[in-house]
């Protein structure tokens, strides 16, 4: 896939890998960066989608899903990562997989200064509780990166996050 196509198609690429990896539960706090992936998941009758009020609900929920034999993915933006930190203790103490797909804000041409604090602290916050972090900044690497993260989460029983760079998503333009 060339760069221009990849820049448009990355949410579909993620969706394809999730299907391929047998992910059947998708939970999310609504997010502009994940708009297409959320819509595709909802449209898929084989997938159970759950809208959350706050991101840590998804950490606990997917731990329950996995106990019951189902694989899931948690979609959020970087501002929600801090909410999840204590709940990740469930994954660490029990060696329960977790796949977090995080769209980044506050890192690349950001217009909203209030996104910067959590955006700049996202990777450190995750790593401070032992979450394995992969960066995805080049859309042509989407499928490889998501697949590697999903494999590591589900086959090695670890919490793994993919930080999808703001450069890839494009900055949010407010009405001029």
């Amino acid at each position: 896939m060339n760069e221009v196509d990849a820049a448009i198609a990355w949410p579909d690429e993620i969706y394809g890998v999730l299907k391929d990896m047998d992910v059947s539960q998708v939970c999310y706090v609504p997010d502009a960066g994940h708009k297409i992936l959320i819509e595709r998941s909802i449209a898929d009758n084989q997938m159970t989608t759950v809208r959350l009020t706050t991101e840590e609900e998804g950490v606990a929920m997917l731990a329950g899903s996995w106990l019951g034999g189902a694989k899931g993915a948690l979609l959020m933006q970087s501002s929600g990562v801090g909410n999840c930190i204590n709940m990740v203790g469930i994954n660490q103490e029990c060696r329960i997989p977790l796949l977090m797909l995080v769209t980044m804000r506050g890192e690349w041409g950001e217009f909203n200064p209030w996104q910067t604090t959590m955006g700049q602290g996202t990777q450190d916050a995750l790593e401070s509780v032992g979450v394995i972090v992969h960066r995805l900044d080049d859309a042509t690497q989407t499928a490889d990166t998501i697949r590697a993260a999903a494999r590591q989460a589900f086959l090695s029983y670890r919490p793994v996050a993919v930080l999808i760079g703001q450069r890839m998503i494009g900055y949010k333009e407010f009405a001029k």
Partner: protein
Amino acid sequence: MTDKQATLDRRDVVSRILAGREDALVITGLGSATWDTAAAGDNPLNFYLWGGMGGAAVMGLGLALAQPDRRVLVITGDGEMMMGLGTLATIAVAAPSNLAVMVIDNERYGETGMQEGHTGAGVDLGGMAAAAGWRKTTIAWTEEEVNALAPILFKEPGPIFATVKVNRDPVPLVLPARDGTAIRARFRAALLGEKAAE
């Protein structure tokens, strides 16, 4: 807040309820609810939380969605539930018919030293669940009401939210396994058999 006296013994309540569980899957909220469930008798289909405060009910949601043919019961404390109030909305919207949550409500944070909690000041957890749209909410103050509760929790279409008002008498400490990897491996093996190894 209320004039009613809570006289039920929490250990007795949890034992009575679990006597009717059959093959139900049980998740317990951290602290006293975990000890109560362990005291009622260990079971490989118990998943004991020792942390993740606020996450017990919504963990039950994930399990209920993954296992639609099994009944899932979450047993937790009023303080633990209060930390996950948003999950009342999330669960109501997801509407799993096989999920029930039972809150052991002592109107206190027992585990941390019996400090007063919001339910003691009049906050109605069941009312919040009802307002969110849970299919059934109920409250038990008496032994008769507890006896009537088991068939509701395990048989009626959910999501069901039950509050049980209990007294604050001290109970002996009964601790289940503490190693999370052992708890989850045992649970998955009992539930999924060979598929647990996947």
